[in-house]
């Protein structure tokens, strides 16, 4: 079961006030739900979002499933999102991805057994000038090399 915390219910009220219709608050509320639910949206979290906004659950899952950043499955403690679009690939993103996949023994969309890492190949992150780039959870890491990536992962293990 999922129910919003009291504090989050207050945040939701504040979000609702930002828009002329309650329906418009669906994206911010899904963000809040995802945050509270450990960085992914369970069916229960989507249902709770629908209920708190008085929307049909079908509509909310239709919205949530459209966007890539609402995670429909649990993700690891560190969500490694490596850009594989054009500018990053020109500068070696595919090699980084191979390296990461080999190192963690997972491919796109998978999570390591220990639940620490999820790897996703993502579209352009807007870091073309500092390519190749990846996001670990919300943080950007740019101008990556294989060494830099190993370094970063080492830092996370601690």
């Amino acid at each position, binding site marked *: 079961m999922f129910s919003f915390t009291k504090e989050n219910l207050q945040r939701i009220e504040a979000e609702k006030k930002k828009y*002329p*219709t309650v*329906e418009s608050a*669906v994206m911010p509320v899904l963000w809040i739900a995802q945050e509270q639910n450990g960085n992914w949206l369970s069916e229960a979290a989507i249902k709770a979002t629908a209920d708190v906004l008085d929307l049909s659950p079908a509509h909310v899952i239709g919205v949530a499933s459209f966007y890539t950043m609402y995670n429909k499955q649990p993700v690891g403690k560190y969500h490694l999102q490596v850009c594989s*679009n054009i500018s990053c*690939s020109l500068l070696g993103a595919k*090699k980084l991805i191979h390296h990461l996949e080999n190192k963690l023994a997972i491919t796109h969309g998978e999570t390591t057994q220990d639940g620490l890492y999820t790897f996703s190949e993502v579209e*352009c992150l*807007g870091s073309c*000038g500092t390519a190749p780039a990846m996001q670990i959870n919300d943080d950007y890491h740019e101008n990556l090399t294989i060494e830099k990536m190993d370094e970063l992962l080492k830092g996370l293990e601690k």
Partner: protein
Amino acid sequence: MISLAGYEKVILPDIPNLNQIAVYEKHGGYEGLKKAVSLSQDDVINEVKKSGLRGRGGAGFPTGLKWSFMPKGDKVRYLACNGDEGEPGTFKDRQIFEFNPHLFIEGTLIACYAMGIKTAYVYIRGEYVKWINILQASLDEAYAKGYVGQNILGKGFNTDIVIHRGAGAYICGEESSLMNSLEGKRPYPRIKPPFPAQVGLWGQPTTINNIETLANAAVILRKGADWYSKIGAEKHPGPVLYGISGHVNKPGVYEGPTGMSLKELIYDVAGGIKNGKKLKAVIPGGSSTPILTPESVEKATMDADGLRAVGTSMGTAGIIVMDEDTDLVEALHILSKFYHHESCGQCTPCREGTGWLEKIVGKFAAGTATQQDYDLLLKICANMEGRTVCALADAAAWPVRNTITRFKEEFEARMIENKNKAGWDYSMKAVSGV
């Protein structure tokens, strides 16, 4: 010849801590807003019209004209500020958020004043958490100082600015998709007409502008349309943020006048091709704009006319540079996969065509394509272009059409018929790397 020599930066000037309101004010910040509110609404719109500013979001529509489409009267109306920045090769709006957020806020307020708008929504792509936080902090400062909110500058005009975080969907950068996303609907682009200026957000008149466009509006009001229109190309004037990425020595966002030569940007501004390699191809304005051969790059200037002359367009001025070792087939495969991944799926030709294109380009990448596949790609493009609700289908077809025709030999070499002739290595080859 328009050149960077002697150009004074106004969008991203080299001033430390310009994101702090006190620093911003010290350097002429919010003067443009003060100027604007001393004028009538129509005069502000005319000033923007006179400046010749054209949208920086990709379509290059004249901004003043767009603002003048908003109906008069007291209907509730909205501004949507487009910070979705999803076009591959584009990474400029985040620089404004990071280094000069108040310029954007000021431009937004000027737009709201000119069009009688009481609420502006800033739609920022979901990944940009860092930049959302920076903008929010600046916005809080601006509220505290009375630039945003009620009775702005004591002139009795009220405007709120609300930040809305996206969640990972390139299509939300398309203006009508953006509106549906903001409304909490599935972000399908809308059929036009009706245009947003008639029926936009929540059914009300709405204007959508790119972040950089709005920042430019602040510069226009601060420095005057006469000053502004003299910068860069005559018919497409103003400062512009060039985002240069790929195989150059100094990739990054560079401010300069429109109309600069593409060569100067690549070889001088961005320090030339990495490792002393030769140039193979350039995409001049974000991934959707037609790719250029080195011969065209020689001639191209970065403005609407200059780029039209070489069969491409300005887009977002995101310049993607590819050196001689680049596997263009693989590069196109990456772009086709992107558009396939990002099609919203409502229109038949786009939903089905983007996937089909990716599959056939994949055959070229794998070395199993034939002449028939080549011809078929062009036919599929023809069945997608101009047949859909929004321009994503065109954006998906153009790179295919232009890459395979402008670099035909490279695709022919990958056909199975030519396998032995060309001596290619047919294992999936990554684009040349570090």
